[in-house]
């Protein structure tokens, strides 16, 4: 990690230490969700259950890591961009999840009754 140029004075030092601690805490929590989601993706038996696992990693894991990075962002604009990234990822991943899930569901029905139509 890069050495941080601490500003002089006790309250600022305390504030920065608290920010670093919050970053560490949230980043660790985010990593936990990513690892859990990945393990689920690799180990769970079928597509729908795997989707269930991976969306947790996408939404919560990324959200927590964005939260951790927010404490390190230099400006309000930088923080806003980080939040925007998370929001877009939420939108895209939940929709992609829905589309994959529906496709799976349809194909499962097709496989069960191939000559239905």
């Amino acid at each position, binding site marked *: 990690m890069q050495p941080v140029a601490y500003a002089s004075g006790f309250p600022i030092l305390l504030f920065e230490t608290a920010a670093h601690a919050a970053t560490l805490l949230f980043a660790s929590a985010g990593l936990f969700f990513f690892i859990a989601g990945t393990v689920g993706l690799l180990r769970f038996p079928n597509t729908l259950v795997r989707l269930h696992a991976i969306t947790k990693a996408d939404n919560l894991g990324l959200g927590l890591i964005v939260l951790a990075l927010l404490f390190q962002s230099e400006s309000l604009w930088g923080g806003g961009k980080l939040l925007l990234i998370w929001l877009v990822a939420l*939108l*895209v991943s939940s*929709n992609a999840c829905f*589309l994959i899930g529906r496709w799976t569901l349809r194909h499962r029905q097709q496989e069960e009754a191939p000559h239905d139509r």
Partner: protein
Amino acid sequence: MTADLVLDLLLVVSLLLLAWLLLRSEDFLRTAVLFIAFGLFMAIAWVRLLAPDIALAEAAIGAGITGVLLMDAIRHMEWERQQRGEDGPEHPPPKRPLAVRGGILAAALAAGGLLVAGVWQLPGQRPGLAGAVSDRTEELEHPVTAVLVVFRSIDTWLELGILMLAVIGLLAARGRQTLEAASLAPPRDPVLEGVVRVLAPLAILVAGYLLWLGTWAPGGAFQSGVILGAVGMLLWLSDHRSIEALPVWGWKLLIVVGFATFTAAAAITLLLSGAMLEYPPDWMLAMIKSIELAAAISIGACFTALFVGQHPAQQRLQTDDGKQERHPRL
């Protein structure tokens, strides 16, 4: 320092492992997925080399667009195999004899060893043009961005030409006049339409942002154009009507405009200042920005065309609910 070293070593090992796995794999789908993973790791490697521009481009082109094109091609191959009535896996390639494989391995190792030895022998400090280069790029933060912005315009020009040739080649190979292709879209779906309605304008905004950013920070025509291309693919895949808004000549114009603008700029600068792409100081920013804009639009149009043009012109796949066949024309 050691943490950096560990991270770099992990990256190198992962890259080599992924490359090995994807070359060894006999399942096409698996190969494509591994290739996407390889592209993502490659992007991280570029970030580690302080080249965020190339990392962006690698992630977008190497992992994103190429991945989509590969997956699509695999789907077509499988479908065509089914049409021919062939089931089962592809025939495995014949094994080469051990002596040939050993020879190839030895040759590759020798070439790699020569390269490494060559790099090893480079003198660490060379005066060369480093001073002149850093004079011209000092106001730009990232060294790679600076070199790309200041020195690499001819590369971008020729890359645009290559993309255009790829589209023409695709049309020639498919024997087509236009990029007309049957839509494979799923039946109308409110969720998909809703997300496309939000995502497409947002992505176009991001493309514009990257283009504007490219003057001094990571970003630029290629990164922006790839996002535009992705928007085109998204619109076509979801059967959005706006993809048909442009007439065929409009698409042709979009595909050509980047290369044409670059060529015009080269001709104008050649006449004005006697050197190709040596912009007069007063006009420099305006010229570079208009070239970048045209380039980004063309790159987007070319990627969309490459994706759409590879699909069959006739709707031969049966749709789920027997809906009316549509033939969006690009």
